[in-house]
């Protein structure tokens, strides 16, 4: 596999350098919405969706900015456009598919201000990905986020029944779990090399 092949870009963001466990992007929802498997799964799907939308937007904006030599406005434009694009999509979904909105909708506002979304846009720009690569990257990142979130939710659901020592509850427990997951994911290092 070449370093810039679509498969590698996907796998890299998905498991090798997992967005949450190796890049630390999107930690707030990762710690916040990982209590229940079901919620985590829905949240994950919403993130995949938002990532696709924002990656596409970011690609478009960057194209325009480079064209007009306005790279220094990149950050401001990204954050503004991604936020409004997601809002727009939210409104569209609400109008045309209330069922889908019920599943994804509550998470959308939460996701918009999530560093994983902006991080995705910035990383794809830094690495000069073309459009197909951007899509592979955003899918990998989104599913990587979902995977980490769902695994975490499973572990936390299991530990709800455990007699965890009172000093290691809450955030410390979640972070320790994340550390263990991150350790386990190191097994994928160098995959495909």
């Amino acid at each position: 596999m070449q370093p810039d092949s679509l498969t590698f870009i996907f796998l890299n963001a998905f498991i090798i350098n997992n967005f949450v466990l190796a890049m630390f992007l999107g930690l707030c929802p990762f710690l916040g919405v990982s209590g229940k498997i079901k919620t985590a799964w829905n949240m994950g799907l919403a993130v995949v969706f938002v990532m696709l939308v924002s990656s596409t937007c970011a690609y478009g904006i960057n194209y325009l900015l480079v064209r007009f030599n306005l790279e220094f406005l990149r950050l401001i434009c990204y954050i503004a456009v991604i936020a409004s694009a997601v809002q727009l999509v939210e409104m569209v979904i609400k109008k045309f598919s209330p069922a889908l909105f019920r599943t994804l909708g509550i998470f959308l506002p939460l996701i918009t201000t999530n560093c994983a979304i902006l991080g995705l846009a910035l990383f794809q720009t830094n690495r000069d990905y073309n459009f197909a690569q951007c899509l592979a990257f955003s899918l990998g990142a989104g599913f990587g986020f979902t995977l980490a979130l769902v695994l975490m939710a499973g572990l936390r659901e299991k530990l709800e029944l455990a007699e965890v020592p009172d000093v290691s509850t809450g955030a410390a427990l979640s972070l320790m779990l994340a550390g263990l997951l991150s350790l386990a994911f190191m097994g994928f290092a160098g995959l495909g090399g």
Partner: protein
Amino acid sequence: MTESRVQSKGAVEARAMLHTSPHLRIAPSVDIIMRNVVWAMLPICAFSVFQFGISSLALIVTCTLACIGTEHLICRLSDKPSTTRDWSVAITGILLALTLPPSFPLWMAVVASVVGVAIGKLFFGGLGHNVMNPALVGRAFAQAAFTGPLTTWTPYLAEGRFTEFIPSTLTLPFLRPNSITEWLAHTAPDAFTGATPLALMKFEQVSTNGIQLLIGTTAGSAGETSAGLILICGIYLMIRKMADWRIPFWILLTAFVTSGVFYKIDPNLYPDPLFTLCSGGLMLGAVFMATDMVASPVTPLGVVLYGILIGFITVIIRLFGGLTEGVMYAILLANACSPLISAVTQPRIYGAVKPKKGQP
């Protein structure tokens, strides 16, 4: 790992309900099972000492004592009765030692033991609540922290192994291990390559003889070399109904099939399936570590999925990953997945209606 035969009350009941075939009339008590597992591991330890000498002995003793000590100390600190008497932490210690290279510095082995028991087990509430196998947590931590020493291998049946330590074993705490080049030069004059069968396969496409792998006359971690011996010990445990045969069975079957497929595609590039089964820590992991009941799924179908997952990830990491060995990570990842697998494969209660989609 087997220590998990002791579980939280709820889990025991869940398992008891899920078991279909009548295995034992009276469930053996926790420490009897644990003790049996320790007995079953002793031949492996003995072989390891025979093969690698006093360094290996020191490693096994150090790890076991460090694990027991950590558990005892933490229980005392948190004003709980010490849980060291159920033998489970001893199993963690022995298993950890068996997965480390014989030349591993003892102080690093202590670090791995402390981390494995403290972070891998007691942080989450002790036995029955650990999310991953504690011995493997310790080893994974050591692999990430001390990559160099953990991938340094020594020759098997080296001369003078019963009279002198491998130089790196006695490294002072916090220091880099002493170089073993000079020691290698006089113990293994016939150009020991310092590579395990897996590394030879991966980097030089040299396969190792199957008989050698079964007997264990290869370099490798202290207790992983003899696939045959491990299998015999595992079968003993299974015959005595002290271990679940399904998990090792599915792991080995999947590993066999997956690597068989790749072997069929290109026999020159990929190892043959029997090599995959007998090399590295696959046998040890499948028999003694993946069977950790606390960290494996509880449903019958879940156990199958769990085994398949471990076998598959192991082969993928070995063939396509940056690392030569993937069993440890495969088991850790499968441990992480096991609550999810249990949830997905939960048998439906008879008569219950599946909730409609879209409804909470």
